């Protein structure tokens, strides 16, 4: 019997990133973003990234440092207002920013992870969000067809993992993390604590280990 060895060092995780990759990240204004994996991405030097997540946080938190260091070619996010550098690069045409309503963005990610071809949402109807999208009307209500999003790698922050990758989150740091775990070809979770398999009550697991490929321990090398 073989137990997959999912726990790796940041150095090993660093090798997984490549130029031009699409990367989904957890976090909301930095809370729930894996700071160690963001540092690994910086250290790796990968460039021309497409980043998908809620927001670009602040220049020194969340994925902010990747923006400041000009590693990102394209952003798909709902909010950039707290990171002035994102706005500056956008207005200077140095970065492509696709702004998506938060509830739509999370559904697009969920669709990408759940094998759905899209959802119908009333959000954005009558605004510039609807441009170029298929619209359907049912019972007199207009909906936009919003299509799935997927990524090459998802970087996740969780509170605790067991050795097979079952994850639990803390407070408001959950946000996008459980959804991006479904929607990427490779899922790397940075966790504060690692326990033995079987130590997490199966009823409180939020992200099943089957979705998690690699685990790094926050604060270790």
């Amino acid at each position: 019997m073989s137990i997959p060895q999912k726990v790796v060092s940041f150095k090993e995780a660093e090798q997984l990133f490549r130029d031009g990759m699409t990367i989904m990240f957890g976090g909301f204004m930095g809370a729930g973003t894996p700071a160690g994996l963001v540092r690994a991405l910086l250290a790796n030097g990968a460039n021309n990234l497409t980043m998908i997540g809620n927001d670009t946080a602040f220049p020194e938190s969340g994925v902010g440092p990747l923006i400041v260091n000009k590693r990102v070619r394209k952003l798909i996010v709902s909010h950039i207002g707290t990171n002035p550098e994102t706005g500056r690069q956008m207005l200077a045409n140095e970065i492509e920013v696709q702004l998506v309503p938060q509830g739509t963005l999370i559904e697009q990610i969920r669709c990408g992870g759940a094998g759905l071809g899209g959802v119908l949402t009333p959000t954005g109807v009558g605004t510039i969000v609807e441009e170029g999208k298929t619209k359907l009307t049912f019972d007199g209500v207009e909906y936009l067809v919003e299509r799935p999003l997927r990524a090459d790698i998802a970087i996740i922050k969780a509170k605790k993992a067991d050795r097979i990758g079952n994850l639990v989150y803390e407070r408001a740091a959950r946000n996008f993390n459980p959804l991006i775990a479904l929607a990427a070809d490779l899922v790397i979770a940075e966790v504060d604590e690692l326990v033995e398999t079987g130590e997490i009550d199966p009823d409180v697991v939020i992200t099943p280990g089957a979705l998690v490929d690699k685990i790094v321990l926050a604060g270790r090398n």
Partner: protein
Amino acid sequence: MQAKEIIARRVALELKDGYVVNLGIGLPTLIPNYLPSGINITLQSENGFLGLGPLNGQEPLPNLVNAGGQPCGMVPGGSFFDSAMSFALIRGGHVDATVLGGLQVDRCGNLANWMIPGKMVPGMGGAMDLVTGARHVIIAMEHCTKEGNSKILKQCSLPLTCRSKVHMIVTEMAVFRVDNGLVLEEVGPGVSVEDVRKCTESDFRISTSCRQMAI
């Protein structure tokens, strides 16, 4: 009384006991301070929880933050969930009221509050879903821009956040209900209907029960 306090006090009177409420960042966050006694609301935070509360001098926790990323507290009986659940609650009509700021509102109940092209593009965050899904959409904002221009217009000129979703506009000068155009329901402290007219680009009807704000 300062404009912001007038607005926050007046909006507070719209929130009913038992309501689940999502408050935008900025001015709306002042509202819970002015809830009448006996009125208990549950605050929803779009980053994924119910039961947002004040910090009340407690030590901030890194993962207990509001939708603006600022440390906050939580009341007993709160619960945390992921963003898909958070927006299922918002879009699905499980939030009784949302109070948001606005750059412009027009007489059709259109709102613009997420970008000024070429200048300020913070993004819509959760605002488009909130105005689409919340059962009552209240815009809380100062009546005019810093330059003294009306923010209540015949037609919004900035990119819209939503079309025809605003139910009520509360400023320091007026309370408007949106009902096939704007209906002036109340005027602010020391403000006349004529004052409101001067400061409002949009036309509006005057409610038969139009009165002074009781704040």
